[in-house]
């Protein structure tokens, strides 16, 4: 471009469409978005901010711990199953050392309803108890299993015994790779591809299926694929405790966004049932419920929620909006 273009925001454009664009852009200019007081407020917040480096350390430690626990669970399962035990008999026709029923309980752990939340990045990526905890009580000690083995019916084992532990390890590794890509590199598309592979290989009932689903929700949210995230969240049953609260809050917001206000209010109600909770999810729930109630025509209840919001979160993220709404 040889000549420098004139700004549209400078009045006097020849073409009508450019003149209109210029007018719109002129009106969109913000000379001073924050006044001196607001800038001082931010400076105060900066002084109060925690040191972020420690958060990264906690995150790394959490990931390492989760992987360690998951790996430990796999080893424990394998040992208890007897596949790696020096006492297991090599002869093929020997009956399986544990009952098929017990084996089945390890191979197909039902989805855990209280799935980990998607938002707190410092959360351990893999809930080790899903692998390790059910395995331990499902198995008698190895010695006892050998003793009772002759009393067991010599039914054929459906799942190949040697494949189960490695399958769990592979599943855990695949899920860990998806989480690592998602949380450390922000590669949501790559994480989804890994989760698709997970579902192809391990189905939706594997030991880590619940973690896979919540990871998928997190990836979909990062890609702004809210409709798909909501479809998946609708199949989950997050509890209003622990890390399930973030899932519940997100589902409430997405339901409200989809104009499913009664269901959204139910999610927000569940979060607000614990009146002492004053975390981020309680804040979102209170303001979200106000918005939903307003949309449902219950202005009085909406106003009550906004009053409660300001009482509990006077400097909250929606405080200015709540005040504006109440003033009007």
């Amino acid at each position, binding site marked *: 471009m040889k000549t420098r273009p004139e700004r549209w925001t400078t009045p006097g454009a020849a073409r009508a469409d450019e003149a209109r664009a210029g007018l719109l*852009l002129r009106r*969109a200019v913000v000379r001073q978005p924050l006044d001196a007081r607001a*800038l001082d407020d931010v*400076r105060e917040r900066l002084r109060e901010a925690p040191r*972020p480096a420690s958060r990264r350390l906690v995150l790394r430690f959490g990931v390492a711990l989760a992987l360690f626990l998951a790996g430990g669970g796999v080893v424990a399962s394998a040992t208890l199953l007897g596949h790696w035990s020096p006492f297991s008999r090599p002869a093929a026709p020997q009956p399986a050392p544990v009952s098929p029923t017990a084996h089945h309980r390890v191979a197909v752990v039902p989805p855990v309803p209280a799935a980990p939340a998607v938002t707190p990045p410092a959360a351990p990526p893999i809930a080790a108890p899903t692998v390790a905890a059910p395995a331990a009580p499902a198995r008698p000690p190895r010695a006892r299993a050998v003793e009772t083995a002759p009393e067991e019916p010599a039914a054929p084992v459906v799942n190949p015994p040697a494949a189960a532990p490695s399958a769990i390890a592979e599943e855990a590794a695949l899920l860990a790779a998806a989480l690592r890509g998602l949380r450390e590199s922000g590669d949501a598309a790559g994480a989804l591809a890994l989760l698709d592979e997970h579902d192809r290989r391990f189905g939706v009932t594997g030991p880590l299926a619940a973690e896979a689903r919540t990871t998928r929700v997190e990836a979909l949210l990062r890609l702004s694929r809210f409709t798909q995230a909501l479809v998946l969240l609708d199949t989950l049953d997050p509890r209003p405790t622990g890390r399930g609260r973030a899932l519940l809050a997100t589902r409430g917001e997405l339901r409200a*966004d989809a104009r499913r206000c009664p269901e959204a209010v139910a999610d927000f109600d569940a979060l607000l049932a614990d009146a002492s909770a004053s975390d981020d999810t309680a804040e979102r729930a209170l303001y979200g419920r106000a918005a939903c109630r*307003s949309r449902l025509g219950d202005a009085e209840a909406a106003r009550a929620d906004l009053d409660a919001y300001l009482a509990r979160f006077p400097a909250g993220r929606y405080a200015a909006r709540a005040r*504006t709404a109440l003033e009007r």
Partner: protein
Amino acid sequence: MPTLRADQTPADDVVAEAPSLDGLYRAHAATVARWAAHLGGPRVDVEDAVHEVFLVVGRQLPEFRGDAKVTTWLYRITERVVRGARRRDRLHRWLDRVRRADVERSLSPARPSPVEELERRQSRETVYAVLDRIAEKYRRVLVLFELEELSGEQIAALTGTKLATVWVHLHRARALFLSELAQLDRNTGGPR
């Protein structure tokens, strides 16, 4: 520690000797706020964006060697923060819609706004509705040229691109802006 160069701005001068977080904040917070407002539009909380930018600055300050101008460094952090804020805000956008469409209307009798303020708000919303449909690299140049009123050279320095690229992107951004604006008008039944 960065040294003052000929192409540094007076604001850079304030922090050239001692690039402390506080010094950077005093010198650049207002500029960062304006960048955030223009890059992000009405849906980005400028105060939060400024806070986040300077949290990043505080974290990265020990590694800042002065290879780039302070303003360039800050701009790039601001751009990243605003992009993240816009992504996050899409999840919470319904609250704005609810606020505008329902909460304000249903909780109280409408308070008439001054016409100018109303026009300004509507224009801003229209501009960012159009900008949201334009690819980031074009949107950025258009915002810096028209709203920040920077020269091509300043845009090239801030974004780390060649001057010729800036002009090409601006040309393309303008064509896209007009076409998306026309499309928006058709969808909404006329100019807003």
